């Protein structure tokens, strides 16, 4: 466990400025078996201390790759000097942001380590299961990734705390060829929040996911190209989660709003169908622990849910303390840093479209000619709200019934136009938390949603 060598340094904080001091350790363990070959067998640990100082509208930051009392003092001094350098040259003259009452956040989940040998044996068993049961695959990969970030946070005003975010995933990749000889690949992540032993008990718990993935791959072997055009589709929960994160979430991060995002013109306006409500959950979602719970951010703000869209109306942004002051909103714990050498940025936590009242079967049955899109392999969005998602798995819908699987394609649209076309929302959520969001720094995030009936452009061929 990360030792607390920083709490005693509060007496060194300069008066009249806002100061954050953070000790942090990131760990990553990785084992990759590609066609039975061990291509990765690695353990990574990065730890250090950093300080950030806010003065008159500018920040100074400094970090050192050392977890010592001396290093804490050095970064405090350097961050203060950097803030003074910036203030001296820029002179923005902005006020200090409003104070937050002090408090303390306890450690909810400790980071526990596991021997590399156990990871390797676990992955080998899954690989053996795939190779024995599905010998006709053209290739297979099983990759285990266990990562964690643990932080001790001290602030001049706000909460202090000890927080940790461990997660463990096994990524399954299966390859085959279509009946026309075209190489195909599908992947599925299995796992979630927690240390290895929290998430996995026996390799056999992964086998149903392997079998389901293989079945989808076989369906895709017989797949057809989607017909290009503006189509009615049913976005499965993985894709509606991606939509919540990429196409809407980023546009309502307050730093991107200040940088020119389209959401700057849309606050308190109708941006979606009344069936759409979207929330960035902090640690608890719909009565259950969120996929990657965040209790305290790196500015000392206790985390709470941020309601972004309510009944189709854009209600708010995700903020840090400075942007919250600018927009007259409440900071809700979105300022997070990835490593000890990173400054906090406005980041999403667990961003989701909320479920509605429709049954998935009824939604599919209501589509005369369209597609049911279930999996994605990447997504990108613009500050205009224009988005593009790669679709790695989906099905035709003809006269309300699922038809052929489709080959890889792309969907695109403009989020705040497309969300107005949502006219059915399923009653079940699907969450994912296996990826990282990229925005200067990487960050593990959760995203989720129900199935949505809507209209988008589909790529075809």
């Amino acid at each position, binding site marked *: 466990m990360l030792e607390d060598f920083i709490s005693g340094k509060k007496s060194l904080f300069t008066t009249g400025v806002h100061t954050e001091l953070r000790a942090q350790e990131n760990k990553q363990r990785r084992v990759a078996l*590609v066609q039975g070959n061990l291509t990765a067998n690695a353990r*990574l640990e990065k730890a250090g201390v950093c300080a950030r100082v806010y003065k008159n509208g500018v920040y100074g930051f400094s970090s050192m790759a050392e977890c010592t009392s001396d290093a804490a003092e050095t970064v405090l001094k350097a961050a203060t000097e950097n803030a003074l350098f910036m203030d001296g040259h820029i002179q923005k003259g902005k006020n200090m942001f409003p104070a937050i009452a002090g408090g303390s956040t306890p450690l909810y989940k400790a980071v526990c380590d596991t021997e590399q040998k156990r990871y390797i044996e676990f992955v080998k068993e899954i690989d053996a299961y795939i190779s024995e049961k599905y010998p006709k695959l053209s290739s297979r990969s099983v990759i285990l990734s266990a990562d964690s970030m643990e932080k001790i946070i001290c602030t001049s005003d706000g909460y202090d705390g000890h927080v940790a975010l461990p997660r463990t995933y096994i990524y399954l990749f299966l390859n085959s060829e279509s009946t026309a000889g075209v190489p195909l690949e599908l992947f599925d992540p299995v796992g979630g929040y927690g240390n290895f032993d929290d998430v996995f008990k026996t390799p056999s718990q992964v086998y149903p996911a392997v079998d389901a993935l293989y079945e989808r791959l076989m369906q895709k072997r017989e797949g057809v190209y989607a017909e290009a055009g*503006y189509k009615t589709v049913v976005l499965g929960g993985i894709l509606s989660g991606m939509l919540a994160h990429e196409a809407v979430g980023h546009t309502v991060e307050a730093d991107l709003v200040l940088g020119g995002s389209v959401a700057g013109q849309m606050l308190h306006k109708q941006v979606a169908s009344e069936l759409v409500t979207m929330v960035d959950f902090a640690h608890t979602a719909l009565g259950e622990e969120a996929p990657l719970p965040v209790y305290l951010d790196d500015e000392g703000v206790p985390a709470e849910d941020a309601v972004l869209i309510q009944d189709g109306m854009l209600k708010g942004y995700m903020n840090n303390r400075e942007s919250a002051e600018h927009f007259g909103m409440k900071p809700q714990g979105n300022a997070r840093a990835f490593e000890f050498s990173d400054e906090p940025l406005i980041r999403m936590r667990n961003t989701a479209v909320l479920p509605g009242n429709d049954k998935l079967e009824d939604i599919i049955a209501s589509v005369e000619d369209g597609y049911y899109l279930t999996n994605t392999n990447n997504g990108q969005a613009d500050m205009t709200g*224009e988005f593009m998602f790669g679709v790695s798995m989906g099905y035709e819908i003809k006269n309300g019934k699922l038809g052929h699987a489709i080959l890889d394609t792309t969907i695109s649209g403009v989020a705040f136009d497309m969300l107005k076309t949502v006219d059915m929302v399923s009653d079940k959520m699907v969450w994912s938390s296996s990826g990282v969001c990229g925005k200067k720094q990487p960050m593990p995030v959760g995203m989720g949603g129900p199935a949505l009936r809507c209209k988008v452009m589909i790529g075809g061929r």
Partner: protein
Amino acid sequence: MKDIRDIAQIAGDALKQEGAEKAQYTVTFKETHEFNVDGGQFSLFRTLFDKSLSITAFKNQKKGSAFTNKLDEETIGATVKECLDSAESGIADSAYDIAPCQGEECFREGCYEPDADKLFARTKELMEAVKERNPKIVMEQMIVSHVKNHTLYRNTNGTEFEYFWGEYSVDMMYSAHEGEKMTSFFSSSVTVDNLDTPFIELGSLAKDLCDVEAQLTTVPMEGKFEGVVVLAPSSLVSFVAHAINNFASDSVILEKTSIWLDKLNTKVADEKITVSMAPTDSRICCSERFTGDGFKSENYNLIEDGVLKSFMLSLYVANKSGFARAKNSSFALVMKNGDTPYADMIKNIKKGIIVGRFSGGNPGTNGDFSGIAKNSFLIEDGEIKGAVSETMINGNLAELLQNVVAVSKETITDGNCVLPYVAVDKIVISGK
């Protein structure tokens, strides 16, 4: 703090003591000075002091790797032990190896010590230049930094490489705004080893900013047609990267899913295409001098006059597959220019688009791609008509390389890559 050589010595001794049969280890000391501009205003000054040790060790022909940035003697010993424990838990493979002895060599590149005051002045000058020349640009974020890096690599075959380098870089992300109209965001970057020239005059920064302002005016793009796409250097880099990843990289050769698996020394692209990885090219700033496997880096052609000359393979996959390893492990991409002036390239196009950025799904294993043409312009009858919006392009990466109709005489150099404009026929372009 211990000297970089003391740390390497402690790691080397610990590896010997723990019984590593072969090993390589790298100690890195790095300092970063960085100015951030957010929403068009200076926001942050960062100074970072990093150091790290990475180790790869072999025992009984099994391999383990470990990385730490705690460099006290006790932690180094524990990390070495953990690395060898991991190796012993692994799977024996005769293909695991490191480079034979390459001797000892020291490299020095770029500007090792930063001039923070001048860097700040150049950054301020760039912001003022953008405001004056391109008033419709909103700078979402600009990061300007100097990185100073000192690396010591050693392996048990007797190689020692020491590398001192320092470079300045500028990364900007921005869009243009006019009333309620706004463009897609665009990123520009440049890396240099000195501060002699105003940043606005480097790479394609000035042109990129003007292009994005021009994208405020859009022209309708309707229907679907097969036409010529001009890949600007800013989008060409992602197509080349996808092609290499899908057809020539470690994973697809090891998995044998590459469609180029049997194409070495055969034609995979138009003869106008030569793709090199050239970390020591004088136009590339402070790139790799030795590979991850411990070889001294040499430039090589991946595709030469359209012929596939090399895959991009590590020593492990080379040993595994029987193909030659790549002569460096960088992505210092240099593409040979052609003989068509850019203006003539545009003049010769009946109907097509210039693609500034491609926002697409990861291409399938077979190379099929589809996505949105961002920051792009319509060409009709040899003239640039205006920017397009909500326009998709799709095709196949392998066919794209074969269907090149022209390569520009001009290249853009940003310190990381050297790239021309490439015109490709038979791409499906669809408007709304």
